[in-house]
């Protein structure tokens, strides 16, 4: 038996070698893959059809009715973070490092949200001027991430002492977030879009999400809404407001090191885009019109219109003497939705308060200065905490701030610091078996400092 099976394997291998040899274009890499496949993995082999609960919606009196049905519970966890952008990433790492069971669900296949998928590569307001000195305010989880990015090439630029507002490489950032999240022991599920909440009275007990594997539930003791759009707190009925903001689409152009700057400047093309770690590449912002980021028709229209505008802009550069080599390298996978829902928190932080800056007994993060010039602004815990809903925290751009402070809160830097704060608070609530509302602030601040956060 044994020699025979060896013979079969050998024969198969020879067949594959033969087919690999059909064309000189098929290289040794392919052969190696096929050898690997020969060792065990099988493609296009039949696999049992998964048994999936079948409860289709139906029409009754012209209305679409969704039938009542039990949902399979995908996981039970202590802390559930919904949305893997900058805020969700920091929240999940912080909670897991604090030693509680943490799960993160993300609708796309990578972490970083608008930072990496939106190609908003610059981390604005990482620093502030504290007592006359340029001081890094994004420390803790976000600081750890940037420190790690500084050790790889191409990782991050403008992250040396004396500088502020660094720019990172999107792929390096995604990779490093993956590393940190797995290192911390976060249970992560990509390609899961949270669509609803599980309620028990006034307390959120988990979320319902959709995926290729159908609709399932995750139960959690504390849920952190870092969807950016407040999808979770809105579904839970928490009080919130909704705002319109400019929605753009970032793109990247390549070969900018091969342009004739003088010639382009003569033609009125002075600004190619913003620098990033790759020397021949620039990322280009597009502000876009102010509209509703929750409206599918608007989002669709803008994807198409913005992509057209980007295409035409790059063609214009290519048609200009000096810019012939420039090419459109990438259009961001995600639209740049700046602001939609803002939680009505127990404290609404105002622009006025931030510029005084007002201090709070429950400071959990320090916001930075976009120009690095003014003082850091303390962010109280109340901006993350819903007025009435229990078991939930938010962080990042959906935090409770006024119209003017949105412009600071929605930045990656603030997302990292408030995300860190929310993660630590959720972990503490689980440990002390209380709601996030009743978390001991002194203990929370001690935990944040232990995790390297800067609180002024």
């Amino acid at each position, binding site marked *: 038996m044994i020699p025979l099976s060896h013979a079969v394997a050998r024969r198969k291998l020879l067949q594959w070698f033969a087919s690999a040899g059909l064309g000189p274009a098929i290289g040794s890499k392919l052969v190696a893959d096929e050898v690997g496949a020969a060792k065990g993995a099988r493609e296009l082999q039949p696999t049992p059809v998964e048994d999936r609960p079948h409860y289709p919606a139906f029409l009754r009196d012209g209305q679409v009715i969704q039938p009542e049905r039990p949902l399979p519970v995908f996981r039970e966890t202590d802390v559930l973070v919904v949305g893997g952008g900058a805020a969700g990433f920091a929240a999940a790492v912080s909670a897991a490092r604090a030693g509680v069971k943490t799960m993160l669900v993300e609708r796309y296949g990578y972490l970083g949200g608008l930072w990496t998928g939106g190609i908003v590569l610059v981390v604005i307001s990482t620093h502030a001027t504290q007592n006359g000195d340029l001081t890094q305010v994004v420390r803790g989880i976000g600081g750890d991430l940037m420190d790690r990015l500084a050790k790889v090439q191409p990782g991050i630029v403008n992250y040396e002492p004396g500088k502020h507002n660094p720019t990172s490489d999107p792929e390096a950032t995604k990779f490093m977030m993956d590393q940190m999240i797995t290192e911390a022991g976060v249970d992560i599920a990509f390609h899961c879009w949270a669509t609803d909440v599980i309620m028990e009275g006034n307390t959120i007990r988990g979320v319902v999400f959709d995926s290729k594997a159908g609709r399932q539930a995750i139960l959690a003791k504390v849920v952190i809404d870092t969807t950016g759009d407040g999808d979770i707190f809105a579904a839970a009925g928490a009080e919130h407001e909704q705002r319109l903001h400019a929605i753009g689409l970032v793109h990247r152009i390549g070969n900018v090191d091969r342009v004739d700057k003088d010639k382009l400047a003569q033609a009125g093309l002075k*600004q190619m885009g913003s620098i990033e770690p790759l020397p021949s590449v620039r990322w280009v*912002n*597009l*502000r*876009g*019109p102010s509209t509703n980021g929750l409206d599918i028709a608007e989002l669709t229209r803008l994807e198409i219109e913005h992509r057209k505008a980007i295409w035409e802009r790059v063609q214009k550069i290519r048609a200009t003497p000096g810019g012939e080599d420039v090419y459109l390298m990438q259009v961001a996978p995600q639209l740049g939705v700046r602001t939609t829902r803002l939680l009505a928190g127990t404290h609404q932080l105002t622009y006025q308060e931030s510029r005084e800056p007002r201090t709070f007994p429950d400071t959990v993060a320090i916001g930075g200065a*976009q*120009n690095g010039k003014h003082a850091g602004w303390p962010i109280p815990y109340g901006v993350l905490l819903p007025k009435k809903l229990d078991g939930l925290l938010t962080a990042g751009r959906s935090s409770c701030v006024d119209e003017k402070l949105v*412009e600071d809160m929605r930045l990656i830097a603030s997302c990292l610091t408030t995300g860190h704060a929310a993660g630590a608070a959720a972990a503490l609530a689980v440990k002390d078996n209380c709601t996030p509302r009743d978390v001991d602030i002194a203990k929370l601040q001690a935990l944040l400092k232990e995790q390297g956060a800067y609180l002024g």
Partner: protein
Amino acid sequence: MSRWVSLIVIAALVSPWLRSVLPVAAVSPFVALVSAVAARSVGIITLIGLPMLILAVLVPRVFCRFVCPVGFLQEMAARLRLPGRARWRSWPRVGRWFLWLTIGGALAGYPLFVWLDPLALFTGFFSAFRLPTTIATIGAGALLPLAMLLDVLFPGAWCKRMCPLGALQEALAIAKQSLANRTRATDESLFSCPHSPVIPTSSPFALARRPLIASLVGGAGALLARHTAAKPPPLRPPGSLPEDQFTGVCIRCSGCIRVCPSRILKPDLGQHGLAGLLAPVADFDTAYCKEDCNACGQVCPSGAIQRLSLAEKKRSIMGIAKVELSRCWLAEGRDCTACIRSCPYEALSVSSDGFDSHPALDASKCIGCGACEAACPARPERAIRVFSNNLTG
């Protein structure tokens, strides 16, 4: 021994003023008179100085004797004089020239030597401690010590011979006396004061000749000084008189500069022409003119900065913002809205059209408070700056 006592007395008198922002100079009748003449109007603050003016007619040198802190300091300083040092008695009486040149200048809209008013010197000295050290602040602050030094070397040289306020009081006494001479004999009691002048008994025409010539010269000088005013004029505090009057009426007491909580007011170093030397200019490098503050107008003793209510101040136009798109981050594609958010009057908004976004200004709402300029992150030159509204007209 008495020298030490004098020093202690001087220190005791000086120290409380180091942090004070009271408009002391308003008490000076000289300031009140020439400011009112130059501004062609009588403000509330002017009325503080007028009773003193009337009193000076009745009692010779009343201000010097009972009010003037510089006079008191001079007396103390005079006791510090080095023994054996000879007094120089023939120090020229330049004070009356200062007086008439200034009055003549005031008639032409620019009171030339109003900044030599002792109370202006006094406040100017204390302002120097609250201001960044520059040649101008040192210059303004050095006048009082210089005057005192003069009196250490030549006792009475400042007060009796140079002070224009002293000369004004003397002139009033002379005028009163020469009127009295027409009707009755000289009242000896007038001369009981050691500071009182020797009153000549010439005819009124002879008396008036020199002041007349000095006034004419002063007027011509004032017209010349006003001619040096820079175009565009610099930014002045909110509620300032029109530029051509402002530089004349301002007595350079630095009261506004000291009281400004944002510290945006700085003494003019002459960048904007000789006429405005040491007058306050607004600078929005780090801060702006706060919407809930009208302090500069409250302390201005001359009325160069008018007293505005907070509601009036919010409508008082200092200048107008102007965006230079070639330096603007938002126009460059960076997502900056610093100026838009900082504007307390909501005069700025984002104008967007595809890739082209930039700040748009509603000129009818902009009062030139400088919040946008202070917030603008563009360097080395800001993308948004406030310019005097006289320029845009």
